[in-house]
């Protein structure tokens, strides 16, 4: 590979610097803000690394949703001064870190500069995989089990966070007028953007997860703006949360029963299957992430 350009060095330095700031700032607010900045810097790095999907996902999920969750934590209780670790612990920790870093630096120098087996294999098989975009084909066909299980992680994280909620959820009340106004603009924009990402995902960067993150964003905005439906933790919301996983499992079981084998997609209808699963998955991810958010924002509230 080419030697490192100045841009690479600058970008690397920026990432490292922001990461250090994010972990060094003593206040929660500072740490969280720096982390959000890290998300932006990383998105640039991802773009530089020819990974537009990741850049989108990072923007939407990594810093978008995670950031929103963190921000919400802050607003809940901003004044919590961090205690300091003991001096010995700090020294030991820093030393161990330095040793580990030195060792890892040696290790990564041994990484061979040649592509893995997989890009060629993907390129060979992508026709009939149901998506022209390679990343989508990997996610929804070649390694669909990973994707199914990842959706399951989200479902059960939402269930786990939901189980921590011990009082009924209410939307914030009253809502300041500017928030409502902003919501009216943001809501349709986010839904549209999500839908576009979803549809585009089969042939271009984008897909269920990025779209789901947009939908989640929309729901969170609606929640903050006081919309009752967004605060719901009822059966319908839970049903939407799990719909993606269930649809995926149904597809898997269906293909198995048809005699093709688990998750084996026939090229004739692979495209339709992929798009269908992606759509349900995107909605599920949206609702699921929103559920985690709602569970969080509620959990701090002392019951009256």
């Amino acid at each position, binding site marked *: 590979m080419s030697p490192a350009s100045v841009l690479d060095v600058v970008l690397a330095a920026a990432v490292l610097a922001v990461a250090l700031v994010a972990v060094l700032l003593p206040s929660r607010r500072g740490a969280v803000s720096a982390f959000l900045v890290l998300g932006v810097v990383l998105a640039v790095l991802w773009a530089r690394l020819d990974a537009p999907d990741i850049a989108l*996902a990072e923007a939407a999920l990594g810093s978008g949703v995670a950031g929103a969750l963190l921000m919400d934590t802050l607003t809940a209780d901003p004044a919590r001064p961090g205690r300091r670790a003991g001096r010995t612990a700090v020294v030991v920790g820093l030393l161990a870190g330095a040793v580990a870093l030195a060792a*890892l630096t040696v290790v990564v120098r041994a990484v061979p500069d040649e592509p893995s087996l*997989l890009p060629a294999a993907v390129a060979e098989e992508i026709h009939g995989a149901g998506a022209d975009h390679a990343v989508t084909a990997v996610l929804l066909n070649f390694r669909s089990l990973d994707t199914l299980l990842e959706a399951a992680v989200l479902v059960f994280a939402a269930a786990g966070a939901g189980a*921590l909620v011990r009082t009924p959820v209410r939307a914030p009340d009253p809502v300041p007028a500017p928030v409502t106004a902003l919501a009216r603009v943001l809501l349709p924009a986010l839904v549209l953007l999500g839908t576009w990402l979803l549809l585009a995902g089969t042939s271009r960067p984008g897909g269920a997860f990025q779209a789901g993150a947009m939908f989640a964003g929309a729901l969170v905005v609606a929640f903050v703006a006081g919309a009752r439906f967004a605060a719901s933790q009822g059966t319908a919301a839970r049903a939407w949360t799990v719909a993606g996983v269930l649809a995926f499992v149904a597809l898997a079981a269906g293909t198995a029963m048809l005699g093709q084998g688990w998750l084996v997609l026939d090229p004739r209808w692979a495209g339709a299957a992929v798009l269908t699963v992606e759509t349900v998955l995107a909605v599920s991810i949206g609702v699921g992430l929103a559920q985690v958010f709602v569970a969080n924002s509620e959990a701090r509230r002392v019951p009256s």
Partner: protein
Amino acid sequence: MTRLELLLALGCAVLVVGLVAHLLARDLVRRVVALNVASAGVMIVLLVLATRGTEPDPVAQALVLTGIVIMAAITGLALALVRRVEAPEDEEAP
């Protein structure tokens, strides 16, 4: 130093920074942030590995996509737990 080595080292550095901070921090939210930083470090390593050929490696990118979503879900759960830990005593009792 090649770009590959530089960026791989960057990923490792971010990982180590995140882990050390996670272990040393006492504030729970900061520990969650540090964990996310560490996770970003691993993602950098994977994505840098994906750039080794002429075409970007879609599998490695898919892995990172999956990893990011999982990390978001875990962050959500972690923060819900942080809330619960920091909740007033009376709320904890069922």
